[in-house]
Structure formats: C-alpha cells, structure tokens
C-alpha cells in the first residue's frame, strides 16, 4: 500500500503562474529540455565516431525530471546531480561546449580531462560533481544542508539518487541524519524502473521508494517524472518548505529509462511493450503539446527555439573540438594543496 502522496498533474497556465513560472520561463524550460536531449544525442554520435572513449550514458526520458527540479532551485542552492541529470547542469547554466569538452576528455571540460562522461559539475554554479559510487552523493548533500542549518543560511541542498542505488546504506544514513536534524535538503529519486538489468521488484519491496520517507520522519511524494510542470511544482514546494525550516522531502520522479543503461547495452531484458507504453510519455513531446494547447506556442516560435538550440549545439561542438587534450605531464598535479592553494581567503 502506498504511503507517499501521489502528486496531481498540473492543468492550466494559471496554475503554473501560481507556482511561479511565467510564459517566458516556460519557454526557457522547454529550451533547456531540448538542449539536454540534443547534447546527449550528439554525444551518442560522437561516441560512434570514436571521439568519446569508453562508455557513454544518457538520461533520455529523464529530461523533465532533471530540468523540472533544477528550475525550482534558487541560485544559492546546491545540488548533486547524477548520470541521468544532464538537464540539471543545463538549467544551472553550464555551457554546452564545456560538456562536449568533458565528454571528449578535453582540457576545458569541468574535470580538465581527468574524468569523462557526466562525472562533472561546475561548483561555481552550485553543483557538486558525482563520483561513480551510487548513491554516495546523498550524504554529501546532507552535509551541505547541515552547514546551511548551522550557519542559518536560507539555502537548500538537493541530492539525487536512482531507485536501484536506494538499496545501499548511504541512502539510509543520509535520510536518517536529514530527518533527525530536520535539515534543508530535498532528496530526488530518479526512478527510471531499471538499475542496469535489475527491475524494481528486485530492488525494493515497498510500492514506492518515496514511501520510505515516512520512516525517516518527513514527507514522500511520487510525481510523474515525464510531466515537467508537476515535477517543478512539487520541487518548488519541497525546496521552499526546506528553506522555511520545515525539513526534508523525498520526491520520487517516475520515468522510464528510454534506452539501455549505457550505449553498449541494448536493454534486451526490458519487455518491449514497456518501451512501447512509455513512448507516448516522452517528456519533451508531452511538454511541447502542453505548450501548444495551453500557452499558445505556435509553429514560428517553436521553429525559432528549435533552430536556436541546433545552432547553439553546433557551435558548442566546434568549440569543444578545438579544446586541447590535457597535458599528460600534469598527471600528478593537484592531488594535494600547493602553497598557492593555501594563499586563499579560506586558509588565511
């Protein structure tokens, strides 16, 4: 039996306005979703061309969840997005060319060519780069929230995790501490129904992951992760609640991983009809239809947005390819602080 609240879809433009988004914002959200998918589609091509070495992950199907949550964050908030959350980086303003540079291991990527894929973040934009270990970023987000609480800063931390990784102890430890201390943190579960080949019924036994929230002393909400407006509304509520001192929320965004775990995986273990059923819930198509029906998005305006995104990404790709590969002799640099590093306000 479900314990978590199941969020309603968002209806009218009026309702969206009340939630804090005007028409311009909505078009921005749409654009960010297009950029998100566009980057990953181009990444796929780069991978096939051999320009992205190793593996390549995308968040196809998760664009609404990622962009919806990130849009609800304020500038001073922080977050720990994962490998399905490209939309968070885009919404926070990471320039696409730097993401392509990251993919290709170039010196101008956020990790300076030391790491690849979406294992990156720009800390100046309030994002903390994930490590591979899942869900190791959850306690980190909780630590940020603890710092905000102690300093009485009106800031919120957002920690992302997959439903599969919710099985690890880090998840429990993070949520327990957050609940005990009523910290300003929002946990976002990207529930795409698969952890590599493992289906949800082998990952957890409750109806929803969000049902667990009650056990930690805070609220759980399940939201349709393909409905960007519903994700936004629930995230905004949770973030403002946290900011106001009323503690954490666990938001579960229900989606389907629309591709294999990574490019090398053909997802043979996912029942075909599951893909077919979910194809009608493509988050971008859904929002496009909504905008046309409720916000008077017309052909001309849509074309303008689409071609703008295309141009942005083409230019970004060119710029990224011009970025140099990192200098191998820099290998040992940066493991420890140097005297110059110590010459900062923080250390003085």
């Amino acid at each position, binding site marked *: 039996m479900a314990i978590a609240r199941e969020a309603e879809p968002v209806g009218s433009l009026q309702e969206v306005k009340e939630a804090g988004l005007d028409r311009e914002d909505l078009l921005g959200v749409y654009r960010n979703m297009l950029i998100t998918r566009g980057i990953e589609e181009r990444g796929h091509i780069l991978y096939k061309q051999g320009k992205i*070495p*190793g*593996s390549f992950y995308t968040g196809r199907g998760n664009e609404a969840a990622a962009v919806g949550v990130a849009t609800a964050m304020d500038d001073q908030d922080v977050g720990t997005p994962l490998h399905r959350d490209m939309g968070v980086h885009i919404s926070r303003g990471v320039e696409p060319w730097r993401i392509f540079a990251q993919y290709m*291991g170039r010196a101008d990527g956020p*990790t300076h*060519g*030391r*790491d*690849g*894929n979406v*294992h990156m973040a720009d800390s100046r934009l309030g994002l903390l780069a994930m*490590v*591979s*270990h*899942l869900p190791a970023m959850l306690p980190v987000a909780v630590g940020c929230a603890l710092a905000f609480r102690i300093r009485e800063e009106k800031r919120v931390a957002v920690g992302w995790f997959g439903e*599969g*990784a919710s*099985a*690890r*102890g880090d998840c429990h430890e993070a949520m327990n501490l957050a609940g005990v201390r009523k910290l300003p943190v929002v946990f976002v579960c990207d529930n795409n129904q698969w*952890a*590599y*080949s*493992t289906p949800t019924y*082998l*990952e*957890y036994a409750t109806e929803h992951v969000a049902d667990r929230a009650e056990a930690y002393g805070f609220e759980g909400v399940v939201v349709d992760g393909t409905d960007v407006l519903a994700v936004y509304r629930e995230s905004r509520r949770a973030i403002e609640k946290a900011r106001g001192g009323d503690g954490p929320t666990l938001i579960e965004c229900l989606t389907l991983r629309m591709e294999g775990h990574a490019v090398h995986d053909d997802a043979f*273990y996912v029942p075909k009809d599951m893909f077919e059923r979910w194809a009608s819930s493509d988050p971008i198509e859904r929002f496009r239809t909504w905008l046309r029906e409720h916000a008077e998005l017309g052909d001309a305006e849509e074309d303008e947005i689409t071609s703008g995104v295309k141009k942005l990404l083409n230019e970004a790709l060119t710029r990224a390819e011009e970025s140099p*590969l*990192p200098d*191998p*002799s*820099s*290998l*040992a640099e940066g*493991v420890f602080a140097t005297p110059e590093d110590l010459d900062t306000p923080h250390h003085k």
Partner: protein
Amino acid sequence: MAELTLVEAINDAFHVELERDPDVMVMGEDVGRAGGVFRATAGLRDRFGPDRCVDTPLAEAGILGSAVGLCMAGWRPVCEMQYDAFSYPCLDQLITHVGRYRWRTGGAMEFPLVVRMPYGGGVRAPELHDDSPEAYYVHTPGVKVAIPSTPADAKGLLAAAIRDPDPVVVLEPKLHYRTLRGEVPEGEHVVPLGEARTVREGTDVTLVAYGAMVPLAEAAADALDDEVSTEVLDIRTLKPLDEAALLAAAAKTGRVVIIQEAPRTAGYGAELAAILAEKAMLDLRAPVVRVTGYDVPYPYWQIEDAYMPSVERVVDAARRLLEF
C-alpha cells in the same frame, strides 16, 4: 583444449564448478538475467536456476555480508563486485567479518567464499572503474588474493578459489577480458593457490609482475631481446605468495624489476621488494626497482596512458639495472 578469451574462461570455470558442487552459488548485481556486465556469469541462471545465480539489489556490503551468512549455512558463495572500486563498500564486511571469523572461532567456522571483480585500467572508462585495489585485500589478515593473467589461469585460479576453505579475492584484468585468447583445458581445471608461474626463462634480468602487467612484461622482454636474456615471473597468487619462486627468479639474474599498475606507495610491489631486501641480499647485483602507477586517482583517457606502466618504462628500468 579450447581457445577461449579470458572472460570466457571465467564463465567456463563457473559452469564446471557449479555443476561439480551443488553448494556453489553466484551472487551480485546484474549477474543473473544479464549474465554480468562483462558476461562472466552468462548462462548460469538459465542452467542452475535463480537460487544459484542471484541478482541482488545494488548493495555491496549487503552482498558480502549475506555471503557470510550463506557460508555459515553451508554454501560456497561467489560474489561479483561489478567493478574494482565498487568493492570498497564491502571492505567493511571483508575486514570485520570475513577475514577474522575463522581465527576468532578457533576454526569452528569457515568462510569458503570468493569475491571476484574486474580490475585495472586501460579501457578508457570513467573514474572508479579502473582501480587496482589488490593491496587493500592483501593487507587484510585471513584473506587470500589471486590475479590471473591468462585465460587458462583465470579458469584454474577461480576454480581453486571456489574450492578453497578460506575467503579468496580474485581480481581479473578487465583490459584483457576479450583481448587475450588462449588454450584452456576443458572440464575441471585447477591452478593451485600459492604457485607462481615462470612465463619465460632468462639469465640477466627478472621482471616480476601479475595480472595485466604480465603481458606488458612479456612485451618488454621482447623489446629487450637483442640486448639481454630476460626472465619473466607471474606471481599469480599474491597471498599466499610463492616466495621460493620469487627468490629463485631473483637469484638467477641478480636484477629485479617489479611491475605494478596500482599507485606506488605501499603497493604490493613494495612487499615483494621488502622480501627481496630481507632474503635475497647476497644474490642481488643491483637494487630492486619498481615500475608502478603514480600516487594519483586513476585518470581518464589521454592522461591514462601516462599513468600506466609502459614497455618503455620497464625497458628503461631494466637497462638501468644492467648498467648499475
């Protein structure tokens, strides 16, 4: 004999050992339906059923911890860690339970379990998919450690680990999962733990390596062919170490280069060097040198090649010893 890749040889070992002993079982993330990320456990679930090839939740401490319980109930579990670094969450169980239980129960309980994982770099993977964590395991009392470098040894050492009455960690060089092919004995094939392998005989300099560094050592020996006669020793079992083979290989040439992919400081190579310092002093004609990775987190792509021990670095080290 069949020609198999290294990962096919591992899969073969599983099929043989699960058939031979009904108490052997496999557990891990994606090992069943998907047959493992690298297909090491392919076909096991279909052949032996979901109770002997268990898809677990994503939870490494839980995997190893429940393997301890399975052992107590008479099973011989083989746990897969999806990648080297994903074994770190299970270190707690390994150190606090697995390594010490036999000892503290005076031998009343045993832990015939295996933890196996793909390890090492060279495959252009993102961070924490390329680590060489062998030193952590070797350093844990009560735990044995094996690292194969050929398909035949991959099968034989895994079989030995499964049959061993004590916990064994097996690290498999993922770089060579599919790039190395070799003759593998069909049916039951066991390579006893604790026996090193002389890869080639030589008289001037000895290269000591294990895992992915063995093919590299062979390439370096090839490169030195015109100059010197090179002995190559594959350690194969890091613990228990075949100390006699190490000392004999060192005595033969008096010059030893140890090759280790892991970061340098306090790596397994340091242990080998210490043993040589203690016991081979009078046989050595030059200092023991190490060619290793660096004390940095394992890097991506372009810098990765600068991190990895290379044929050039090994050749250079050997030449320095010859000129000493």
